[in-house]
């Protein structure tokens, strides 16, 4: 320690405010330095001699102070009282338990507010309103059934449905047909029918109502085949679940009234249109019978062959084909022996067609 540093700490040394190490260093310096030793000696002598004498306060001062204190605490100003009450209340309310409870209430309240304002229900309603018509429109597009020849001049929706049906597989048609037949006419189906009906009725004469099919069937059963044909045609043209059956019975009525020559093509048309369904199979079978009756054996054979794949018609179709082939062989044999027995062959050929029985024979005989 040097004199300069000693001058900075000399008062701390004098009033004993130095730490042990600094005090030891200061003492060592004082022992070696006469100047600093004189300084600290003069300061110590001044403190020793110049102790400030304390005057005794008046004897009544303490009593006066205590009395002033008593009066000050006895009558607290209103502001001080309020402050003290607030202090006591604050010390109670600032307890950790109350703080935690307040925080919990705040969290619950804010979460309730968020849950209440979440627009969940309204969104679901909007989705329902937007989605229902879309889902109901699909079955409506499937319901309408094909029409007769007049459909070619119909509107675009019917054309699209027809094209879709024709593109569809046999299995899908089979699955769709009973569904359409079993379904009760719903409001949407009725609406769909209404949209199709004006263009589906070529002449727009008869209304295919619920009782129309029974009336047509009654006419068919009572032998009024011309009336039944018209009625069934109208029902088939109107479409709906009974259109296929009506088309089939229209062809039957035509066969019964005008013969296979007029009905064969109708049967063939119904069979091709409802291929794979019971109506189509029956129409195909009846078409084959008509072609066989008419002697158009290739057409008959083709229709029989179409029915080979059908479980319920397989046996019948095979027997019919066998019979047809045998008859064909017989006919070939007969044709080979036609020369010696032309009358018999002519009779066999003319048998199913009584309308013109004698025409070839006289011609042949004339030859």
């Amino acid at each position, binding site marked *: 320690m040097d004199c300069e540093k000693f001058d*900075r700490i*000399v*008062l*701390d040394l004098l*009033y004993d*405010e130095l730490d042990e190490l600094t005090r030891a260093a200061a003492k060592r310096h004082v022992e070696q330095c006469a100047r600093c030793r004189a300084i600290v*000696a*003069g*300061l*110590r*002598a*001044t*403190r*020793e*001699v*110049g*102790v*400030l*004498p*304390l*005057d*005794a*306060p*008046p004897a009544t*001062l*303490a009593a*006066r*102070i*205590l009395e*002033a*204190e*008593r009066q*000050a*605490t006895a009558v607290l100003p209103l502001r001080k009282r309020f402050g003290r009450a607030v202090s006591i209340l604050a010390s109670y309310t600032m307890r950790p338990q109350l703080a935690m409870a307040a925080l919990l209430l705040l969290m619950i309240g804010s979460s309730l507010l968020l849950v209440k304002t979440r627009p969940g229900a309204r969104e679901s309603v909007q989705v329902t309103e937007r989605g229902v018509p879309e889902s109901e429109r699909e079955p409506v597009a499937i319901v309408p059934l094909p029409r007769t020849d007049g459909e070619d001049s119909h509107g675009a929706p019917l054309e699209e449905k027809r094209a879709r049906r024709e593109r569809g597989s046999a299995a899908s048609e089979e699955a769709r047909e009973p569904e359409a037949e079993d379904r009760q006419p719903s409001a949407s189906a009725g609406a769909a029918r209404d949209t199709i009906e004006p263009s589906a009725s070529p002449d727009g004469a008869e209304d295919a109502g619920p009782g129309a099919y029974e009336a047509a069937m009654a006419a068919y059963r009572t032998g009024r085949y011309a009336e039944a044909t018209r009625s069934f045609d109208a029902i088939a043209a109107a479409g709906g679940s009974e259109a296929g059956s009506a088309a089939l019975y229209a062809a039957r009525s035509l066969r019964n009234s005008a013969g296979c020559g007029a009905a064969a093509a109708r049967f063939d048309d119904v069979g091709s249109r409802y291929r794979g369904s019971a109506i189509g199979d029956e129409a195909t079978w009846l078409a084959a019978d008509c072609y066989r009756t008419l002697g158009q054996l290739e057409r008959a054979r083709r229709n029989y062959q179409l029915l080979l794949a059908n479980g319920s018609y397989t046996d019948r179709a095979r027997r019919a084909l066998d019979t047809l082939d045998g008859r064909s062989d017989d006919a070939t044999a007969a044709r080979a022996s036609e020369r010696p027995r032309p009358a018999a062959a002519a009779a066999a050929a003319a048998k199913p067609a009584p309308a013109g029985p004698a025409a070839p024979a006289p011609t042949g005989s004339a030859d």
Partner: protein
Amino acid sequence: MAGDRGDASDEMLMVRYQRGDRDAFGELVRRYETPIYNFVLRQLRHRALTEDVTQDVFLRLVQNAADFKHEARFSTWLYTIARNQCIDQVRKLSHRRHPSLDAPPPGREGAGGAPLVESVADPHPRASVERSAAASEVRDRIVAAIEALPDDQREVFLLREIANLPFKDIAEITGVGENTIKSRMRYALDRLKDALSEFDEYARALR
């Protein structure tokens, strides 16, 4: 109980008083009545006002008892109040142009009535020593020398010698740096040494 109160620290007594123990306050008054009275007396140099100001210091303690923190040093807190009270009082006296601050100090009334500065700077102190008893003469010289100090030096001297506060606390109370406080104390001691250098007691103390 009284013994317990007498052994308790100032801070503990103050905490007890905050809790309503008025006897603790009485003990604090007993401990600090005299030093506070003398601190105010030497600061104001007006004996008539000293008693009232001392009472006001303790009354302010009562009013601000709730503000006292247990970690604080009680003596530092109390002398802060006393210093502020003295400053307020000096300001009031200066507005009134009270004659006592310029007149001979009350403690000097028995010392011949000469102005304080003149008595400290008396070029012939030996004549005074020869006129009165040595003890009384030294006492008056000490008081005169202290009261003749500049206000900032006298304040530091009183806080150090009467209140026995460390330099660090004095710096905190006055808001001045600790080195400045020590410098002021060094000047005060030098002036006091000059005032006492002609007395035999001082010469013996040097030996």
